[in-house]
């Protein structure tokens, strides 16, 4: 017989590569899994059915048979006019949700005319938002009560939300009709993404402020998307991503309860954001473990009674950090595998990256291919026919258990440090993530991990790829537009609002209603953040490496 007769030589080759059987979290994977690996698993207690506690198999009974995941692509680009066109184009091609990223100045709480922003206005595939005028143009012609908008904003979330609500009101749409999400996850900014300005506790106050506002006025809106994606982008391995994200989630729950809100009032609107990287089954186990841990903690520890409070609802993005600049077409295949794992993991929403993103923001062609990847998985692969098709797999269930156990180990460590905020102040997360990033890079350089086209199967003389042109005059135009906008405002009212914001910052009142009025008076994002900066001060940390 030809099969079954694998040569000894082939086995030896695989064995000699020590990383070959370790996943990204560093767990050693056994040659085969069987009943003995899941002897402790109680199906009813640990899995339940789909849509049943503890939701390991998915948060809905019918999953994608009932409703497909949201195909959510990034619809942002330098100017709000261009970004608006891109959003409309994505929706016309069949996207069912969009995400909007901000340019680096907006992310850092600065207006386009700030001298620190030179060369970055409209950068990184993000849109430059200074004032209500930009959001008006960005949302032009988009059905705000139909399309869900995911705002990829964090330290500046409160201001972006104020712009959004104010623009919707101008169009006669009240806040309670708006669907969408604010990323608004400040903890992971200190841990990984590094776009913060205020000290952690002042930032936490703003996050809780927006959660409170949304609970009262925006029942269809997710005030936060607790994000592992950025932890992983900065280098966290999947087990760190899982444990740190959930630990952050618990921190938001505790802080919001402390602010006097009942857990069942806000917990159903908490949402999450995960990365899917290269290890296929590890991705899937991560989501299953997350659902189980979250459900148990919400029910048993935080005493939530509403079953919607127990649900780990998650948006997923394929791994930007897995994309290679070398042989960029290979990224199409990577992204497809990652996207498939997200679907098999039961995600609620998915973003697929474009293959040219290691070089620049996506071209029109690559962006379309990324969207079509999801549509092919949805309509052609057959994986949506049945709910949780991999449930019960010896390997997957065993890996899920292992990730759950390791998460609890991390929770203990974090508790010993005094909680997440203390852990940030002590540099715990930053060090863990930086160490993993360095380890990953060394594994690639030592070929303990093979990345096709990067450290193996390389080719000389790569063909140039088609790239999206950016407009070099945009920055100057944007600054001129902002000057014109500012000159038309009632300056006295602007100054009075700035003083009011400082006043609230000094006390402990609510910000959101004031911000909404302030942006209607023409205050810019930089001015509002600036007024708070005057009171809260700016946070700096030593780099850890």
């Amino acid at each position, binding site marked *: 017989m030809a099969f079954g007769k694998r040569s000894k030589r082939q086995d030896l080759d695989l064995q000699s590569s020590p990383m070959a059987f370790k996943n990204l979290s560093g767990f050693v994977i056994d040659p085969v899994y069987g009943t003995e690996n899941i002897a402790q698993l109680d199906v009813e207690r640990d899995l339940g059915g789909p849509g049943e506690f503890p939701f390991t198999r998915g948060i809905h009974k019918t999953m994608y048979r009932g409703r497909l995941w949201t195909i959510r692509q990034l619809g942002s680009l330098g100017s709000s006019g261009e970004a608006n066109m891109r959003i409309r184009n994505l929706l016309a091609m069949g996207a069912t949700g969009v995400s909007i990223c901000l340019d*680096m*100045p907006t*992310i*850092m709480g*600065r207006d386009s005319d700030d*001298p*620190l*922003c*030179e*060369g*970055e206005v409209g*950068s*990184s595939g993000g849109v430059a938002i200074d004032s209500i005028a930009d959001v008006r143009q960005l949302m032009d012609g988009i059905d705000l009560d139909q399309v869900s908008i995911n705002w990829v904003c964090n330290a500046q979330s409160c201001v972006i939300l104020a712009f959004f609500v104010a623009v919707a009101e101008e169009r006669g749409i009240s806040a309670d009709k708006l669907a969408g999400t604010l990323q608004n996850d400040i903890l992971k900014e200190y841990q990984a*993404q*590094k*776009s913060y300005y205020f000290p952690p506790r002042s930032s936490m106050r703003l996050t809780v402020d927006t959660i409170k506002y949304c609970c009262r006025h925006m029942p269809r809106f997710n005030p936060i998307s607790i994000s592992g994606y950025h932890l992983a*982008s*900065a*280098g966290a391995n999947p087990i760190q991503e899982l444990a740190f994200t959930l630990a952050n989630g618990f921190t938001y729950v505790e802080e919001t309860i402390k602010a006097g809100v009942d857990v069942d009032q806000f917990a159903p609107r908490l949402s999450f954001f995960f990365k899917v990287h290269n290890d296929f089954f590890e991705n899937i186990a991560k989501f299953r473990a997350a659902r189980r841990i979250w459900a148990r903690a919400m029910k048993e520890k935080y005493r939530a009674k509403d079953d919607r409070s127990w649900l780990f609802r998650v948006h997923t993005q394929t791994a930007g*950090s897995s994309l*290679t*600049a*070398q042989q960029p077409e290979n990224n199409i295949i990577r992204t497809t595998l990652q996207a498939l794992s997200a679907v098999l993991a039961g995600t609620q929403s998915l973003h697929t990256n474009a293959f040219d993103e*290691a*070089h*620049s923001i996506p071209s029109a062609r690559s962006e379309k291919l990324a969207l079509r990847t999801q549509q092919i998985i949805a309509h052609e692969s057959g994986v949506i026919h049945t709910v949780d098709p991999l449930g019960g797999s010896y390997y997957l269930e065993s890996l899920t258990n292992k990730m759950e156990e390791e998460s609890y180990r991390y929770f203990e460590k974090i508790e010993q440090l005094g909680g997440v905020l203390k852990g940030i102040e002590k540099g715990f997360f930053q060090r863990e993530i*930086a160490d993993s*990033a*360095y380890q990953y*890079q*060394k594994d690639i*350089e030592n070929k303990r991990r093979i990345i096709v086209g*990067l450290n193996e199967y390389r080719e000389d003389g790569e063909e*140039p790829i088609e*790239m999206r042109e*950016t407009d070099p005059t945009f920055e100057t135009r944007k600054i001129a537009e902002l000057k014109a906008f500012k000159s038309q405002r009632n300056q006295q009212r602007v100054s009075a609002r700035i003083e009011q914001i400082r006043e609230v910052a000094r006390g402990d009142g609510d910000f959101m209603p004031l911000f909404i009025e302030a942006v209607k008076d023409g205050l810019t994002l930089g001015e509002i953040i600036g007024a708070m900066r005057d009171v809260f001060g700016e946070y*700096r940390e030593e*780099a*850890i*490496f």
Partner: protein
Amino acid sequence: MEKRIVKKGIRVLLARLGLDAHWRGSIVVAHALRDAGMEVIYIGNQMPKEIVETAIQEDVDIIGLSSLSGNHMILAPEVVKRLREKGTQEIPVVLGGTVPPDDIPILKEAGISGIFGPGSSLKEIIQFISALGKK
């Protein structure tokens, strides 16, 4: 472990240009340079003026810049220009990050000594910097 073939005591200033928050690359490089026996002064986000002032104050051998947000074409040459104005053009400037291939010849023309795009290995970077530092 990597072989430590570098001269001891090369002082490298690492900075992220402008507001760019992307930090993974620069931190991994900082770690690798330190492990290779160099002295790393990591100053996070700074504008060219502050970068050049710190480089002179700290008497560094090399400046390493990181940019993934697209400001490299304006701010990286600005660093070289300011070094020349101060008469300290002997300090070489190296850039890492998302640099489109078309920009590379322009940056080299503007006086950037080395450019390391996505997929560059730490080994190449260490070798390049240690060679520059020996001059």
